[in-house]
Structure formats: C-alpha cells, structure tokens
C-alpha cells in the first residue's frame, strides 16, 4: 500500500490536483442531485418518467488513498429508497503509473451491484491510456454483475504473475482455469481498473446497504421487490411472504415461476404452502408453465404428482416430450400406483409410445404392455 501512496503523491504533485474537479454524471441533467434517466449500465427496471432524488446517508466506502467517499440513497417521489449510489474517485496504479478512476456506482437495496455511469469528461482508461470503448464499458458491466468473479479471492499480484506452465506431451498444459478465466472476464489492458471497481462494488458496502434496508423494511417494499424482474429482489421477497401472502399473490408468483431463473423457480416450488397442493386454482398456473421451465423445476413439480387434479395429469400426458427419461418414469410410476388412467390419458400415452421420433417412446411402450396385462 505504501508504495502506491508514494506514487500517488508524486502523481498529484506532478500533474496538479486541480484538474480533478468533481465531474457531472452524464445522465444527471436535472441540475440537482438525483437521477432522471436510466443509468447507462443498469440491471434494474426503470420506468419512464422516473425521477430520483439523492439523499445523504451515513454510509461510505473507502477508496485507496482517497479516504471515505459518500454513499447516498436515491429516493422516489414518495421518499422511498430505490437505489444507492456513490461518485467514486480512486487511484488505479499499474507498474508505477497511477491514474484516477472516476465512476458513479449504483447498488440495489440489498447491496448488490445495480449499475454504473461514467463521466464524459473523465472516461475510464486502460494501462496504455487509451480510453474505454463502448464494448469495454459493457465488459466492465458484465464483470461487475458477477458477484462470484475470479477476482474475488485473488490478490492483484496473483492475477498478473503467470504461473509456471509445464510443457509436457498431452493436453494443452497452458494456464489451468485461473488465468484464462481472468483474461476472459476483465477488459483487456485494464485489469487494475476492473479489479479496483469490482472490489469497491462487492466490498463491505454490500452488507452495510442491506443492513440499512432491513431497518426500514416494510410490506410495501417487499411487494415492490416481488413485482421486480430482479431475481435478487424476487428471492428476498419470496423468503419473507407469509402463507397467506403466497395465496394472495399467487398469480404474480406463478408469473415469476415462469419468467425467472431456475434458482428462483426451485425455491418457489419448494416453498409453496400446502394449501396450493390441495387447490386446483392455486396450483394450475404453475403446471401451465411446465414446458417453459427448466428440468430441475419440472422435477420438483413432479414431486407433487400425488396431489394434482385429473386435469393436470391429463395436461402432463401430452408433455411427455418435454420430460427427461427419469421424469417419464416418475410420471408412469404415478399412473401405475394411482390405478386411475382416464381414456384420454391412455390415448395420449399410446400416441407417444407409437412415435418414431420420440427417443423415450420405448419407456411408455413397456408401461403400456405391462398395463394392459
């Protein structure tokens, strides 16, 4: 750290500190502290016409040699917190050459990365002083979205020192995963900037923001999160809903089930209260998404075969083409156990078993043979 401070001190003396006036975010055109346009790189929903006001908090982040930097909250017209932001100015040093990185960072209410803006008059630069191109900003955005980046557990020195690469016959011995993954995930020629930005975004501020959110958490905020397309918000809300709230919001939850990521879907199926499995109305929207969701989620739904109404069983009998081998086995085992196979299910099974293109048709054929005995 010391050598960096010395280099930085030299840098300030040599270049003059005055040129680092606080820049204006390109999208902050309202003339006041706030946000009226969607940040250029942003992962949350942004409704047209949104105007967010910036308010101070007691939160801050520490940037290398620059001391504490304020983290503010952006609130909507109802004074509800929407995101957190900080105008960060931090030195980035490589091989004795230091430059200031100016960037405006955003966090979600849960402290996850939400996006960033850069300043037109102080764009991000690479080691060779070339300015970031559009693709580079996008790459940085992708890196910052990865909360489990390879940069997480590595010291910067480990990323630039090439490991020894034994030369032997056999597979391409170069690299192992680490260096290759680093190269793939950072902006070429801007490892230090990427590293610094990632650790600012995913540093201790994350927990601090989440703690602050939890202090003011109320039903409205939870329901806003449930309505969001952000999977972090969805999961957070789904964990907090009561059984009654699950029932009250079953259509929204079914919508999330269909459109979200597998991790959220599997959580939903496991968390649905028992009342769902005894109510045709409540469970049907989830079965409706059967062909659209991932294999893991389908398997979890099929765990509830014993609690489904006839209409769902019938629907599933035309979904055999969307089931894996083991899922078909589960479905057929259920039919065998329940000993109640309607004529329409029977017809669907027959059609599937006679298909020339379905690779698992043989499973149903064997079942039909046994069943008819």
């Amino acid at each position: 750290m010391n050598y960096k401070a010395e280099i930085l001190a030299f840098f300030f003396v040599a270049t003059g500190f005055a040129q680092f006036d606080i820049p204006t975010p390109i999208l902050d055109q309202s003339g006041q502290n706030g946000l009226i346009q969607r940040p250029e790189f942003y992962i949350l929903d942004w409704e047209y016409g949104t105007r967010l006001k910036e308010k101070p908090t007691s939160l801050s982040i520490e940037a290398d040699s620059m001391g504490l930097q304020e983290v503010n909250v952006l609130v909507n017209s109802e004074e509800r917190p929407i995101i957190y932001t900080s105008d960060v100015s931090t030195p980035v040093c490589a091989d004795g050459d230091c430059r200031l990185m100016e960037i405006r960072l955003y966090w979600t209410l849960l402290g996850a990365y939400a996006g960033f803006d850069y300043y037109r008059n102080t764009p991000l630069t690479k080691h060779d002083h070339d300015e970031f191109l559009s693709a580079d900003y996008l790459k940085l955005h992708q890196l910052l979205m990865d909360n489990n980046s390879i940069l997480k557990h590595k010291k910067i020195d480990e990323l630039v020192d090439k490991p020894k690469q034994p030369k032997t016959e056999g597979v391409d011995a170069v690299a192992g995963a680490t260096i290759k993954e680093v190269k793939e995930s950072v902006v070429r020629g801007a490892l230090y900037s990427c590293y610094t930005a990632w650790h600012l975004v995913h540093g201790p501020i994350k927990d601090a923001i989440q703690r602050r959110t939890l202090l003011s958490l109320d039903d409205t905020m939870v329901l806003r999160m449930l309505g969001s397309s952000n999977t972090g918000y969805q999961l957070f809300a789904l964990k907090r809903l009561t059984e009654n709230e699950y029932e009250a919001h079953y259509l929204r939850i079914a919508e999330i089930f269909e459109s979200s990521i597998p991790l959220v879907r599997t959580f939903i199926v496991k968390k649905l209260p028992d009342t769902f499995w005894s109510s045709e109305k409540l469970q049907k929207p989830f079965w409706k998404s059967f062909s659209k969701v991932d294999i893991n989620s389908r398997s979890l739904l099929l765990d509830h075969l014993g609690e489904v109404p006839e209409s769902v069983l019938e629907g599933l009998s035309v979904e055999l083409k969307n089931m894996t081998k083991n899922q078909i086995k589960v479905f057929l085992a259920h039919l065998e156990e329940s000993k109640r196979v309607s004529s329409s299910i029977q017809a669907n099974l027959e059609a599937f078993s006679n298909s020339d293109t379905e690779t698992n048709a043989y499973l149903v054929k064997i079942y039909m043979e046994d069943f008819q005995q």
Partner: protein
Amino acid sequence: MKLILAALCFCLISCSIFSQDILIEAESFDNPGGWVIDPQFVEQMGSPYLMAHGMGEPVQNASTVVNFLETRDYHIWVRTMNWVPGEWEAPGRFQLKVGETTFEKVLGKRSSWGWEYVGEIQIKVDSEKIELIDLTGFNGRCDAIYFSTQKVAPPDSAKKLAKWRTVFTQEPNAPEESEAYDLVVVGGGIAGCAASIAAAEQGLKVALIHDRPVLGGNASSEIRVHTLGIYGHFERILRKLDTQHYPNGSAEAKLDQKKRDNNVKSYDNIDLYLNWRAYDAVAKNDTIRFVDARHTSSGERKRFSAPYFVDSTGDGWIGYWAGAKFSYGRESVDTYGEEWEEWGELWSPKEADNAVMGSSVLWGSKVTDTEQKYPEVAWAMPVAKEYEEVNGEWQWEFSRNDLNQIDDAEEIRDHMLRAIYGSFANAKKHPENSMRRLEWVSYLVGKRESRRLVGDHVFTFNDAKAGTKFPDAVVIETREVDVHYQTVLEDEKNPDFISEALFYKTPQYYIPYRSLYSKNINNLFMAGRNFSTSHAGLGGPRVMRTTGQMGAAVGLAASLCKKYDVNPREIYARYLNEYLNLIEAQRYIKIPESKQ
C-alpha cells in the same frame, strides 16, 4: 474365454433348456483391440462392456475366438445401446464379423440397453473368430453377443436379464474361491491406497480391491484430477500417492501414476486386486462377513472375508450393500445450521433436496503439424449448443436433480461426452484450430459427491468454520470449503455442464475419527468422499490429500482393532490415547530421500 467356456460346459449338461446356445461377454474378448472395458455401470445395466472410445476415429477391431460344440445355424444378437438416440445417425455404430462374414446390420441403434438382432449364420467349423468393427470412434458399446439355435432373444430388462444370466451360466450364488485377510479395503483411490499402506505398515494382511488397472481413482492417469489439501500427520504415506499440482487433465498424471502403483505394490502384505469390482457385501447382525468381487474382464469371482472392512468406493457401495445408514443430497439449512447468507439457496437450501455437486469428465486437445479433420457431431450439439473450447478443467461438471450420481452415472458421463465433442466441434470451426486434434478424453466419471455413509459424528460446514478441535481429531485441513453449483441455475443461457465454486475461507479445521466408521455397521470404516459428512461439510475435505489422511487414519485404527480384537467404535471409547499417539508417531518416521 473363461465365461465362454463356462457357457459351453453348461451347454453339455443342460441342453434341454439352451441347447447349443453361447453367450459371449464382450469384456472377456481375447483381444479388445482399440475398445476399452467399461465396468462403471455394472449395478445399473448389468455388466462391464466394451466401448469404442476413439474420440471420433474408429478404433481397431476387438476380437475373440469362440468354440462351437456343433456346426449348425445360429441366430445372433448383440446387447448394445444407442447412447444418443435422436433424429441423427447413432454416434456409436459398429458391425459384427463372424469368421469371414461381416454382417450388414449396423448395430448400436436401439434407445436403451437391450438386444439387437444381427442375423443368422451357418457355423461350419468348430471355432470361429468374431470381431467387433467400430464405424465411428464415438463410443459404440457392446455388452455381450448371443448365439442361439432358437430365434428368441434374451430379455432386455436389466432385472430379468440378470436372472437369465445366472440361469444360463449356472453360476452358483456364492463365489467358489475365497480369501481371508485382516483388512479388506474396497476402492483404490487415494483414500483406499493410504488405508492399505497404513494398515500394512502395522503388520496387517490387507486386500485392496480396485476396479481399474491403475490406482488413484480421481487422481489416476485415467481421470487426472490433481490432489489438493495438506498432508496432516501423514506426509510420508501421502507423498507415495499424491500428484504434482499440474493443471487438471494434464498428461503429467502418468508420472505420478507410476510412482503410486509402484509404491503400493512394494508392500508384501498388500494383495492388490486390480480390475476386480466388488458387487456385494453381506452382513449378519450388523457385522460384515464378506465382500464378493468379480474380475472386470474374466468374470471370475472371489469372496473376501475379514474382521474389518474399509469402504473407499466413493459411492459407499460396501456400506449400502451391508445396510449402513447413508445420506444423499443437500440437507435443509436448518438441519445443521449451515447457512451462508451471502449465497443462500446455492449454499444450503431452505428445504432439503437431492442436488449434489456434479461429476467431471476431463479432456484436452493439442496442436499438430498437419490439418486435422473432425467429423460432424449433430448429436452432440443439443448439449454443447454454441459453447466452444479446446480443453476441459474442473468446471466441466454436470449435475441435475433428476439424475442420481450413482444410478444415472452412465447418462451423466454420456452428457459430458456430448458436451466435449460438441464444444470441440465448435472450436474447430475457427481456422486457428485447423491443426488441433483431440488428444485425450476420459471415459471415466470423476465424481465429487454421491452417497455419504453416516458415522457416529456427521462432519458439517460448522465444524470447519469453527475449527472445532475434536478430542479424536485425526485429519487436519486448511483448505477452504468449496461447494459447486451448476451455473445454469443462475442463467439459463449458460451451458448446463459448467459449474462454479463458492469458496468459504476457514481456519484450520479437523475431522474426528468418529466420522470415519459406520454408525450401525460394527466393523465398517469409511475413507474418502463417502465419509460421514453433510453436503456442505463435504465441500472442503473432499479433495484427495484430505481423503488420503482419512485413509491413513483408518488404516492405523484397523491395526488397533486387530490388536485388541475390538470394533472401530471402541478405539474411540477405550483406546483413543494409544490411537492418537500412533498417529502422532507418523510425523517422526523419516521420509526416505528417494521419496521426497
């Protein structure tokens, strides 16, 4: 040939049932040519089989000579499977040649394991050479060939076929040969090898049963995962077995292979049964009496009896057969309080489920001096999609909740083969890869997690996190706990065969001896990934120097069991000090210079 002869002998005494019918187990061929013997899925599909693992280039014919009792007409069936059924030509196609006749029928086309009719042939001489002709190099597989005077195929279903095989070969229930040892270790991975060495050094007569031709399991030159973790008290023993830190999949694994095999073979009181796969363990009054094993190519069987057994099979097979308590999947977050809030559901789920860390199949390619063609692999693309790569690392991993890492291991392996062949095909489209060729693709599933046998203590993430100093701590580790998940869970655009690791940095932590013997089977030790642990607890100590420590620890415990004629639990209850002293003494045995 032995199985063929067995069938023939049986024909002599039981002609009324099977007449002159002959069953030839493919794995018993005199000359497998370029085909490999694959015994990984015996418990599911019934038998080791021959596979044409040519990485896209047809392999040399497998051949054997069959003696016929009578010259007459025979119908022929081959037991095979199309491993990627779909709207494309089956990837693993092959033909059968009998004498000078090559049958036109292309085999390897049926959707699941079962019999394909080849045709009819008139056998005119007493003995004929039969050959398997690989057409693709893409993992065609043949389990058995059946010559019958009747046009009636043996049963397809694995269960019915098992019975049929027993009747056909008139195999007695129990193996006729038996061997007695002080300790029987099943599974020759690093843990099993370490257990064998530690016990042998204390004077025990040890049988080490392993279903591959080389030792090391995941660390072997056949799977090529490097060993991680520390040596703990057992540096001298583990240095005989471990690997350098080369990239996973490196051909350097061959050097460590030689070292490991030679070291284990240097012990006179270890009887090494390579290419023997255990298939049963019989317990009476919760005590294992014997383990039965079968040679993976000759089919010969042996019964191994001993007062103590070590389950280092990885899948916990010995415990499973003997009726040991076991677990599979992820406990709910509340079962042991293993929450890590930052990673929530990915780390430990609210509700228990059957998700586990996946299996890897490592592979690599190299650049040559000449243009290298690579065939179209349409059947691989639904898995590989757009993904392109020229070699694989640990992230090439597959797990899905409808697939069990044991029962569906063949499907898991095959899914990875499709991922590999398809991703390489995508990479080959780039001109810079025109001279690149596949050099090595493992056909063995490198598993991370499956059955975990339950001991007197279940090791958890919290034990690692707190660095709990158990009174019976016998394994020490500093490596972080890392649990994997499939990246497709977070983004469906990701390939389903790539994983990510979640690392939790821990202080130095310890595994107690009580996690290394079964809770309900009196004379069963376990060492390796099937030790007594929770899913999250396994994240750290599943690596192979750590599992090697477990092995060495149980090997020494077994020696005290023998000394006092007691069961493993009593070492903890009555002889713990002596046991810990024995372990501590390991530190002071000098490592010969040649082994350093």
